[in-house]
């Protein structure tokens, strides 16, 4: 079985739905990281049978807000001196950039591909995001499909 050492200081992003690990790795910009990072795919899990997880060593100041949109069941633990110092509570981010793509064929983003796809949270209770250009509304349930 593949073994990755436990970390003394850093972050563990756990319980990632199988297959989403690489996507999250990229959303968080970890593919460009100059510090130690491990992406483990298809790890055994009691809760999910199989899961993906990410370990980041000696770095904690990462913007995790996008995880709340992708899957609120993901857990984020901040590790200090070998113990969990904090469990980050995930919620829906106020603004997301280049995570969701606008599907409205009338939107300017459908024909000009250099434009960042930007969405703002408009209704937290309903989980609704609005495209900053065309105002098309998307529900989180549709986004996660």
């Amino acid at each position, binding site marked *: 079985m593949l073994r990755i050492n436990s970390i003394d200081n850093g972050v563990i992003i756990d319980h990632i739905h199988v297959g989403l690990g690489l996507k999250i790795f990229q959303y968080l910009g970890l593919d460009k990281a100059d510090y130690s990072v491990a992406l483990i795919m298809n790890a055994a899990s009691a809760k999910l049978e199989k899961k993906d997880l990410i370990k980041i060593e000696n770095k904690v100041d990462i913007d995790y807000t996008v995880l709340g949109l992708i899957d609120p069941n993901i857990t984020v633990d901040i590790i200090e001196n070998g113990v969990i110092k904090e469990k980050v509570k995930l919620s829906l981010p106020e603004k997301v950039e280049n995570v969701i793509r606008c599907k*409205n064929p*009338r*939107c*300017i*983003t*459908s*024909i*000009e591909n*250099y*434009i960042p796809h930007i969405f703002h949270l408009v209704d937290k209770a309903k989980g609704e995001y609005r*495209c*900053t*250009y*065309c*105002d098309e*509304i998307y529900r989180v349930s549709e986004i996660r499909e």
Partner: protein
Amino acid sequence: MLKGRHLIDPMDFSLEELDMIFELAGDIISHPGKYSDSMKGKLLATLFYEPSTRTRFSFEAAMLRLGGQVIGFSEPGSSSVSKGESVADTIKTVGCYADIAVMRHPKEGAPKVASLYSDIPVINAGDGGHQHPTQTLTDLLTIKKVKGRLSDLTIGFCGDLKFGRTVHSLIKALSRYENIKIVFISPDELKVPEYIRSEILIKNRIDFAEAERIEDVIGDLDILYMTRVQKERFFNEDDYIRLKDRFILDKEKMELAKDSMIVLHPLPRVNEIAYEIDNDPRAMYFMQAKYGMYVRMALMLKLLGVR
């Protein structure tokens, strides 16, 4: 401060900022000579990616009457756009030549994209079926000038309330004023969208009602806002033919209205207002077009910080 700002959405400006624009427009109407050279040396770029006669003429006339000049294109085929230039590059280049730009584009959000890449103020002159904020300014100025107020009004909206972007924008803008009552008159197929009811009317506690016939409600109205059933929005020609003449405002119906009621229309009209009404002093739609030019004059003066 409005200097250097863009106008992309009808809600971009506060009520105080709108008042400043309307006050300046009022002064231009009263003393046009005072402003005839105020934009001397200034250049407006009109970037029209789809044809529009009235809006483009209105902006061009506004700039020329202020002593400024105009460059631009009225269809993308005659510009670098036909070579595949992006909105961002077009506005950056135009910003090297002109002081202010106005853009109409078939895609929703294009003027917003332009504003994000622009060094000069950008005005949205209509983006697809999305927003047309200077029409809203036109409507508000007309109501303010003719009725003397923007609050305590009962307004009827008649015709295509589903696809009519001018109606949606005006409802949003009016929702910020006190004691507004709204009556919708439209066929079932062209009713106002649900989000306008839930997000604007119910959220802002605005009284609204629906009616099936103009004559049932016209006597209660301070303003009747007529709209055209837009042929280009229909996939099925039969549906268009069935609905286009459902509501026609004629002399007989106008007799039921108050003497103080006014009729507005964003134009162009097709059949929905009989020509016999044009001479009725309550028919304000051509005056509305004139106010549209004045409000665009005031808007450009403010965005360039000239006044």
